[in-house]
């Protein structure tokens, strides 16, 4: 498996190639897509992208944790976490693309 990392730049480059907007505007569009998704999630909404996956916000209640190094008990406050559930299509594509 090649150890390569894509960033925002690669996504905006793909938009630039696909639609032919300026590089600058392509980058801005990638940013607004991420912003709108973040805003919806921050409002507690689920973000469901068909054939890609679903992002949902879950509430975790308070619990007592432990510092694994010292064994000391530490309270963990209630918090909201984000989970991503990939679509079947994505799971299938990732599984078949990485078959050894």
């Amino acid at each position: 498996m090649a150890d390569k990392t894509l960033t925002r730049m690669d996504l905006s480059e793909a938009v630039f190639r696909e639609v032919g907007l300026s590089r600058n505007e392509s980058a801005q569009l990638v940013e607004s897509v991420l912003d709108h998704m973040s805003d919806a999630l921050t409002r507690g909404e689920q973000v469901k992208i068909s054939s890609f996956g679903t992002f949902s916000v879950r509430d975790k209640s308070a619990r007592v944790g432990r510092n694994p190094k010292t064994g000391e008990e530490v309270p963990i406050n209630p918090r909201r976490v984000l989970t991503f559930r990939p679509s079947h299509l994505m799971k299938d594509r990732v599984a078949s693309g990485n078959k050894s």
Partner: protein
Amino acid sequence: MIRSELIQKIADENPHLYQRDVERIVNTIFDEVTDAMARGYRVELRGFGAFSVKKRDARVGRNPRTGATVDVEEKHVPFFKTGKLLRDRLNGKA
């Protein structure tokens, strides 16, 4: 929010773009992420999160109905880790 609502929001903000181009833009972004993971690459979007591929080792599973053992092959699954900024925003810290 679903894909079409996301497309609509972007289209409303960019009245100079055709709706069909906005659709292509949004679809391209998600397709690019899926394609990258299908090649085993990571996609790191600072502040939002990172998509990566995790390997699940081969294991012996069981058919829960019959109890029969089945060999499950090694496989790769998509994984998403929330970025620090978004995690903080979800908790009202940013």
